[in-house]
C-alpha cells in the first residue's frame, strides 16, 4: 500500500504546549483543497445518475456551520425497486465474470480512490464533521486499502473458507450504513460483496450521503459494469424498504443495536442472510504496570477519536485502583490540550458532532451523569464556534457501574472512569454488558495480556493500542454487538454460500 492505514490514529505529538508549558495558540491551518458539490443530487442506479421517481428530498448539512451543502433524494419504494432490479440484472453477468477480471475492477477503484484521496477527505469532513486529519490519514487510506485487499481475493475465494472449495455469491446485497465513517463503511460493505461476485444496493446515512455518491462517480470512471453497485439515498424509511425488499438475498447493516434488532426481526423466516455490526460499550482496562504515557494516548484515541462517534469506542475506562488519582490527573491535563473546532483545520483534534439530534442525545447523557452523582470534567477553556454542533471532550469520575453513563452507548466524546482491584474483577466488570464489540488492555506483562485477551468477551481486543483498523483484520462483535465479521478472510464468509 502507498498509505499506511494502521499508523496511529491520534498522533498528538504536535499538540504539546509551548516550551514553558503556557500553551501557545496555534494559527489556523485550514485545508484549502476546493471540492465541487452539486446543489442537488439524484440516485445512482444501473450505472447512471438518475432522478428519483418521487419528489421528497432532504438537506445534507455541514455540521460545523449548519449550512446546507446539498439537497439529496429521500428514495421511495419505486426507487428501491428500480435499484434492486438493476442489481439483479447486473448479477447475472457480474457473478459469471472471470474472478481475475472482477479483481481488476476493484484494483482500479482502489487506485482511483488514492488519486482522489484529498477530495474525498475534504468532502467527508465537510459532510460529517470529522477532523480533516482523521479523514485524510485514517478513513480514506483505509477505504483504498479495503478495495485493494479485496481485489486480490476475487480469484482466491476457494481458499477463504475451510471446507468450502466451491463458494458461490449470494446475489443482491442490501447494505445500510451509518454516518460516523460514511465512506469507510461503504468500502467495508461494497468491496467484499463485489469481490465475492455479488451486486449491491447501498444506502448511506441520511446526514452523510455525499461521499457515497462521489464513490459512485469513481465506479463510473472505473467503468464498473452498470448496476453492480447502486446508491440510493434516504432516511430510515428508505432503509426499511431496502432491507425488507423481496428481491434481496443478503442484508448487511452497520448502526445501532436497536435498528439492528428491527432488521433481524424483519428478516426472520426469510432466506436472507444477515450480518450486523451494532453498538458497543467497550471496556479499556489499564493496569498499574502499564506504560502510563502510552496508555493515556491510548485512552484519548479510544474515546475522543472521531468525536467518540465510534461503535467500538473505549467508553468505559477501568483503572487499577492504585493509579486512579494520578492517571486521572494526567488524563485531564492531556484532554485539556485537545483542540475542538473547525474540522477542516489541520490542527483540529475533535471536530463537530454529526447532527443536532446526536448532540441533544449526548447532552442528555451529560445531564444523566451529573444527576447520577458522577463528577464531570470537560475540556477546554477556549470558546466553541458559534454555529454548528459541538461537544467538549468529557470524562466522568466516580461512576457507579449501574448508572446509565456506565451501561448505555452514548456515541459521543464522553468517557466513564471506574476502578478495579484485581484482574478477576476487571474481567468480570468489563464483560458485564450485553455488548461485546471491542476491549482494550494496557499492561507490560505478556502473561496478563494473553490471560485477559482470552477472557474478555469481545470481537476485537486491542492490547497496548486501541482503535486500529485494517482491511485484513476481521471486525465484529460478540453478543448484542452483532452477527458476523467484516474484513480479512473471515469477512468473506458473509458474502459467500
Amino acid at each position: 500500500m502507498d498509505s499506511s492505514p494502521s499508523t496511529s490514529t491520534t498522533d498528538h505529538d504536535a499538540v504539546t504546549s509551548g516550551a514553558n508549558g503556557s500553551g501557545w495558540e496555534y494559527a489556523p491551518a485550514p485545508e484549502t483543497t476546493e471540492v465541487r458539490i452539486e446543489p442537488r443530487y439524484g440516485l445512482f442506479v444501473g450505472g447512471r445518475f438518475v432522478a428519483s421517481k418521487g419528489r421528497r428530498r432532504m438537506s445534507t448539512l455541514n455540521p460545523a456551520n449548519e449550512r446546507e451543502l446539498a439537497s439529496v433524494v429521500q428514495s421511495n419504494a419505486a426507487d428501491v425497486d428500480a435499484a434492486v432490479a438493476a442489481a439483479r440484472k447486473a448479477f447475472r453477468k457480474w457473478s459469471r465474470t472471470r474472478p481475475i477480471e472482477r479483481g481488476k475492477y476493484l484494483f482500479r477503484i482502489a487506485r482511483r480512490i488514492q488519486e482522489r484521496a484529498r477530495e474525498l477527505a475534504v468532502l467527508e469532513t465537510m459532510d460529517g464533521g470529522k477532523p480533516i486529519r482523521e479523514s485524510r490519514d485514517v478513513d480514506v487510506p483505509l477505504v483504498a486499502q479495503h478495495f485493494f485487499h479485496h481485489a486480490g481475493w476475487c480469484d482466491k475465494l476457494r481458499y477463504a473458507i475451510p471446507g468450502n472449495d466451491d463458494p458461490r455469491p449470494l446475489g443482491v446485497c442490501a447494505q445500510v450504513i451509518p454516518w460516523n465513517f460514511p465512506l469507510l463503511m461503504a468500502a467495508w460493505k461494497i468491496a467484499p460483496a463485489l469481490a465475492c461476485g455479488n451486486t449491491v444496493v447501498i444506502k448511506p446515512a441520511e446526514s452523510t450521503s455525499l461521499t457515497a455518491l462521489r464513490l459512485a462517480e469513481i465506479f463510473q470512471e472505473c467503468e464498473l459494469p452498470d448496476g453492480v453497485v447502486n446508491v440510493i439515498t434516504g432516511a430510515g424509511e428508505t432503509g426499511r424498504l431496502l432491507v425488507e425488499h423481496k428481491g434481496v438475498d443478503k442484508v448487511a447493516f452497520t448502526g445501532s443495536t436497536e435498528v439492528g434488532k428491527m432488521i433481524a426481526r424483519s428478516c426472520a423466516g426469510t432466506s436472507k442472510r444477515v450480518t450486523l455490526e451494532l453498538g458497543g460499550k467497550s471496556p479499556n482496562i489499564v493496569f498499574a504496570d502499564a506504560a502510563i504515557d502510552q496508555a493515556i494516548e491510548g485512552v484519548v484515541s479510544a474515546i475522543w477519536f472521531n468525536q467518540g462517534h465510534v461503535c467500538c469506542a473505549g467508553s468505559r475506562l477501568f483503572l487499577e485502583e492504585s493509579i486512579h488519582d494520578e492517571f486521572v490527573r494526567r488524563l485531564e491535563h492531556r484532554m485539556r490540550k485537545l483542540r475542538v473546532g473547525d474540522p477542516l483545520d489541520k490542527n483540529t483534534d475533535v471536530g463537530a458532532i454529526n447532527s443536532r439530534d446526536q448532540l441533544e442525545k449526548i447532552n442528555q447523557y451529560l445531564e444523566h451523569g451529573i444527576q447520577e452523582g458522577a463528577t464531570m470534567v470537560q475540556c477546554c477553556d477556549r470558546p466553541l464556534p458559534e454555529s454548528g454542533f459541538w461537544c467538549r471532550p468529557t470524562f466522568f469520575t466516580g461512576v457507579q457501574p449501574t448508572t446509565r453513563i456506565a451501561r448505555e452507548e452514548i456515541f459521543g466524546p464522553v468517557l466513564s472512569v471506574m476502578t478495579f482491584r484485581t484482574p478477576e474483577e476487571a474481567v468480570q466488570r468489563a464483560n458485564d454488558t450485553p455488548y461485546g464489540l471491542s476491549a482494550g488492555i494496557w499492561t507490560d506483562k505478556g502473561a496478563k495480556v494473553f490471560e485477559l485477551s482470552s477472557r474478555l468477551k469481545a470481537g476485537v481486543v486491542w492490547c497496548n493500542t486501541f482503535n486500529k483498523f485494517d482491511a485484513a483484520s476481521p471486525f465484529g462483535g460478540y453478543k448484542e454487538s452483532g452477527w458476523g465479521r467484516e474484513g480479512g478472510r473471515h469477512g468473506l464468509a458473509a458474502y459467500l454460500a
Partner: protein
Amino acid sequence: MNDSKKTSREPGRIAVAKTWKLFIGGAFPRSESGRSTRVLGPGGDFETNVCLASRKDLRNAVEAAESARAGWQNRTGYNRGQILHRIAEMAECRRGEIVDAITATGSATRRVAAEEADRSIDRLVSHAGWTDKVEQVLGCRNSVAGPYHNMSIPEPIGVVGVVAPDQPSLLGLVSMIGSAIATGNVVVAVVSESNPLPGLLLGELCATSDVPAGVVNLLSGSRKELLPHLATHRALGAVVAAGLSRTQRRALQEGGVDSLTRVHPAMDDHPFDGTDFWTTPRALMPFVETKTIWHPIGG
C-alpha cells in the same frame, strides 16, 4: 428396553421397568413438573415411560450449563478430544442398545438403525479429532499494514441450544452436540420428540465418559412447549436446530432477536448422513465466534 425380545427370562420373573429421565448437570432428574409420557413400540408390544421436561427444567439445564462453561472451555483441546473419544468408546460397546433405542418406536428398521448408530459413533470419533485443530484451521494471523501482531482466533460461543430432528434422531443430535462441545461450548439439547430414547441414551453415555457435569444437558419433551423458551433464553449464545417446520424456524429466529442469539434453524439443510458438511470445518463455524487480537510490535 425391549431386550425381552432377545433374551429369554426365567419364567415368572418380572422385568424391572426403566423410566427414561432427563440429563441435567450430570444427574438424571425426573421433570420438576412431575410429568411423564409413554413411548409406544410399533405393535404396542412395548411401552416405556419418559419424563416430560418443563420450562423450569430448561432453565435449570441452562444454569447447569453456565456453571460448566468456563471449566470446559479452559480444558485443553487434547483433553476435550480424549473425552469425546471416550463417548465414542462407550457408544461402541453399547451399540446394540443404541440400535434398540433407535428402532424402539418402529420408525427405523434394524439395518437402518445400525447404520445410524455406526455413523453417530464415527462422527464422535471425527469430533474427537477436531478439538485441538479448530484454532489452526479456523484461525489465522492477519497481515495488517502496520507494526502490529494481529491474529484471529475462534472461540466457543458459550451455552448453545440444540434442537434435534426426529429423523435421524441420534445422528442429528450427535452431529450438532459433537460440533458444539468439540469447539468448547456447553449444550442444552431438546432430543427428538417422537423418539426420545436414543437422545436420552446419549446422556447415559456422557455420564460414563468423564464428560464434566453440565457440559451436555438433555431434555425430552414437547418441542412446541420448549422451543419458545429456548429461543428467548438470554443466556444462550446460539441455538441450532433441525427438523423444524417453516413456522417453527421463523418463531425460533424471532425469539432470538431480543438477545441477538445466533440462530441456525435449519442445520438439516446439510444431510446428517452425508460427509460433505458434517465432517468439515464448516460444521464447526456456527459454534464459534472470531476474536481478533492486536498488539504492537517493537517499542
